[in-house]
């Protein structure tokens, strides 16, 4: 086929980009070369719209071993242990084919982690669907959950936490973000930078098939009516092979045979080979006739673009080929020497003894286009003036039940029951808490992880929203007794070519950066997913934050369930009663305007450190952060989980009980204090100058407040626990 501008456009390249390619090459590329450019220059691989802004992120810290730019980020957790982690999106494929899309998302992120020499120890996911009433939602949810479970369960890595939301802006574009944490000795981390000339380049894992061709380009475009036709661009996962690949790679990594290793993810063999050569400032020569293929007569074009799963590219020390082959033979995996490193600084492809492509590496990597796209600031919406007389017709207990059974608040047990969350025998906090916690095998340490996003806040005011999610992640980790260390982020946005969407991206990143800097909670890895848009309708901006923290003695872990009758319950942090953008405003007043709650970073840090101090001194026995749904929602969850009631005090000086109970002000926690510890707790709260309210006492089997609320916990549990199951069964 002759390569023309039209062919280039078919490959997702812009007109100007095609002229730039011809200019840089000083000739017209052939079809295989064009395919390589299109794979490397698309948004998904090149970060061409986001790069400029991502550079500003806060990525350094005392415990950061590896920041963004590698397969995953790495943090130091002491005693030579390091945690490797990253979150990644698989949004586009999951909408087209939910089971395989979600499954390969999980497979891909686990490969990113074990590529660095780490054994995966925990998975998390953040998944977002359209309105529950939308006709596709139920099937998409079912397929995604089965896909995540199907892959993670088979590999034998526990899924320890997650987040699920519903919003009509995801009707045409669901979000599937998967996160993995792995454990590695910090002196045995593997990187993707090739080094040394004439070193053998090894292909291992599954054979290459025709699945997933153009996957990365598909993920760099918006959807239209013809998305069904894109099914072949979705990869097909085989978790069994990945399990073998994991074990084989870790076995080979036990010695010093590997110079560099990179998994074949988006844009398969193309991006893995280019990235390794580019990082090592080398050239690479690949003989495509040696690539193990699943199907007959595959062309160089197909081999280079295939996104078949469960494959790795390795630059090996010379002379180690036989040793490596033995290991992969043991695990019944394909192994082939397919090329070598060179000093040409080019990627050169041979097929049937003919050279079929030759491109200088820097044209694909450093010279990839970078755009400074125009963007628009979002003004802070005006604060609403609620008519408080209108509240009076609402009964507090009815409001509470309605909020607890709201699709975004209700219990998601139906989902995580389908994920193996206990395999590996170290899960000490299961899904359903503020964060999942796994022990570092054989030690006293434990690692906590949580995923969070707040699309409503980010949509209303991206800058505040960006800050808020980082703070929420920070609070979730502190609530389980963990010291927050670092984050990974998955930035899900609409079309960057639209000023509004680009503005949402820029300002969310700004917010994330500001908060992570202030809280010393650096970003060590992540990914950007743009073009979450169908027929001109984009998603609400949904940056997802995956936070990781450390509990140095796992016996100090906290959970949210109320423990003992007679213990006191305090709210830490001040409640002003911010109702704009709250669940209460949406669900009971049908009011969707107004600004998100203000984020005060000083308070977040100070109050967070206070709670952590209390937990380290063993003065509190349960803890939960106050977020969506406010104080009463948070307290109800603690009651339901602990199967205990609470008698809430007649609160003095309350301006408005609805605002107090359902307001979504930030930087607040609810803690349970044994009476004997109260004096010490108050001393510490005063030392940190932290505001606190004496909310009540754990008592009986119902929530009681004045004459307003007297609800048995069982009734609340019914409202909270079964919405999703009923929805899925209906």
């Amino acid at each position: 086929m002759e390569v023309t501008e039209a062919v280039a456009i078919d490959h997702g390249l812009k007109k100007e980009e095609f002229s730039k390619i011809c200019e840089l090459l000083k000739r017209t590329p052939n079809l295989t070369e064009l395919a390589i450019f299109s794979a490397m220059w698309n948004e998904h691989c090149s970060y061409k719209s986001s790069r400029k802004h991502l550079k500003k992120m806060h990525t350094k810290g005392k415990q950061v071993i590896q920041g963004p730019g590698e397969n995953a980020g790495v943090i130091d957790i002491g005693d030579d242990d390091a945690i490797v982690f990253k979150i990644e999106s698989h949004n586009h494929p999951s909408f087209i084919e939910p089971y395989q899309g979600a499954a390969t998302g999980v497979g891909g992120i686990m490969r990113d982690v074990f590529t660095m020499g780490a054994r995966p120890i925990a998975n998390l996911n953040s998944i977002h669907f359209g309105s529950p009433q939308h006709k596709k939602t139920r099937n998409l949810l079912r397929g995604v959950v089965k896909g995540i479970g199907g892959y993670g369960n088979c590999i034998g890595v526990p899924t320890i936490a997650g987040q699920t939301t519903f919003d009509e802006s995801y009707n045409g574009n669901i979000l599937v973000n998967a996160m993995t944490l792995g454990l590695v000795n910090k002196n045995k981390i593997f990187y993707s930078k090739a080094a040394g000339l004439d070193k053998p380049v090894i292909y291992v894992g599954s054979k290459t098939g025709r699945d997933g061709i153009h996957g990365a380009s598909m993920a760099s475009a918006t959807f239209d009516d013809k998305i069904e036709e894109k099914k072949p661009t979705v990869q097909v996962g085989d978790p069994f092979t990945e399990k073998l690949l994991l074990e084989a790679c870790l076995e080979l990594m036990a010695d010093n045979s590997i110079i560099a290793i990179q998994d074949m993810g988006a844009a398969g063999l193309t991006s893995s080979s280019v990235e390794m050569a580019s990082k090592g400032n080398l050239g690479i020569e690949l003989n495509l006739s040696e690539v193990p293929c699943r199907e007959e007569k595959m062309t160089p074009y197909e081999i280079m673009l295939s996104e078949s799963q469960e494959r790795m590219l390795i630059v090996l020390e010379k002379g180690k080929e036989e040793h490596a082959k033995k290991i992969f033979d043991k695990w019944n995996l394909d192994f082939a020497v397919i090329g070598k490193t060179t000093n040409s600084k080019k990627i050169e492809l041979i097929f049937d003894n003919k050279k079929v492509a030759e491109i200088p590496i820097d044209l694909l990597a450093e010279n990839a286009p970078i755009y400074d796209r125009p963007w628009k600031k979002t003004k802070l919406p005006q604060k609403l003036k609620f008519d408080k007389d209108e509240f009076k017709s609402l009964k507090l207990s009815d409001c509470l039940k309605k909020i607890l059974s709201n699709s975004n608040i209700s219990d998601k047990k139906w989902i995580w029951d389908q994920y193996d969350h206990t395999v590996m025998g170290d899960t000490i906090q299961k899904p359903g808490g503020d964060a999942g916690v796994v022990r570092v095998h054989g030690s006293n340490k434990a690692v906590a992880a949580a995923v969070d996003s707040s699309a409503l806040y980010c949509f209303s005011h991206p800058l505040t929203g960006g800050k808020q999610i980082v703070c929420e992640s920070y609070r979730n980790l502190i609530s389980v007794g963990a010291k927050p260390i670092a984050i990974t982020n998955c930035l899900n946005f609409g079309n960057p070519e639209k000023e509004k969407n680009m503005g949402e991206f820029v300002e969310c990143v700004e917010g994330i950066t500001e908060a992570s800097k202030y809280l010393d909670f650096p970003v060590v890895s992540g990914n950007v997913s743009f073009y979450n848009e169908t027929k001109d309708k984009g998603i609400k901006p949904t940056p997802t934050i995956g936070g990781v923290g450390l509990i140095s003695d796992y016996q100090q872990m906290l959970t949210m369930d109320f423990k003992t009758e007679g213990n006191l319950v305090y709210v830490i942090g001040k409640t002003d009663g911010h109702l704009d953008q709250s669940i209460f405003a949406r669900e009971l007043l049908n009011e969707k305007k107004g600004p998100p709650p203000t984020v005060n970073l000083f308070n977040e840090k100070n109050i967070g450190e206070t709670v952590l101090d209390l937990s380290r001194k063993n003065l509190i026995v349960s803890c939960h952060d106050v977020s969506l749904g406010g104080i009463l929602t948070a307290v109800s969850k603690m009651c339901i989980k602990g199967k205990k009631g609470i008698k809430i005090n007649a609160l003095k000086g309350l301006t408005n009980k609805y605002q107090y109970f359902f307001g979504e002000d930030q930087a607040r926690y609810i803690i349970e204090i044994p009476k004997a510890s109260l004096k010490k707790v108050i001393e510490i709260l005063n030392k940190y100058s932290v505001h606190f309210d004496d909310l009540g006492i754990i008592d009986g089997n119902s929530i009681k407040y004045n004459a307003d609320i007297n609800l048995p916990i069982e009734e609340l549990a019914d409202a909270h626990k079964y919405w999703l199951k009923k929805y899925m069964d209906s």
Partner: protein
Amino acid sequence: MRSSVIIFPGSNCDRDMDVALKKFGFKNQMVWHNDQSIPKSDLIVLPGGFSYGDYLRCGSIASKSKIIKSVIDFANSGGLVLGICNGFQILTETGLLKGILQQNKFLNFICSNVYIKVKDKQNKYFKDLKKDVLELHIAHNEGNYFCSDDELKSLEDNNQIAVTYCGEDGTENETTNPNGAIKNIAGIFNKNKNVLGMMPHPERMIDKYLSGEDGSLFFKNILDNFK
């Protein structure tokens, strides 16, 4: 007591089982599926996971693997063979245990704590066990035990039903049956009661920070009965 845990490609509870056995004092060894023979053992464990990807049918490819002949010989000579989850599926595929494990009734993978009732204590696994109801953990997609009427009758007549799903108080009924298994069956013995297959994972319940500690009782009891 010497034990061996067989690792098949795709096994994923092998390490957990190794950790549990060693914790309670078993001298455990790991055995690769392609090995010719099994080291001298008093107990062989087939661990949970997805042997050979569970392709074709759960456990079926593993039941034809190289090592399995040694396992069958060991079982037939009276040795203790314990199959957990995928291990149970493998044991039914080899014919050492009767019946099959089909997909869960509600078609979903289930990961959850369950209560099981110990139905027979005249065997080396449960003899003198202090409790009648244990809290253990299940994690499976194909745990719905089924067998023919004749097979069920013979299981019942010979007291080969080892454990059944029940409530905290021991009640066995439809609501305490997580996967639709016939007669709430969670585990069975062979006729000589030296081979035990069960879906629940005792190795995931071995300290108080995990889902519970009843798995510890199970392992300690095997050791006590061996003395």
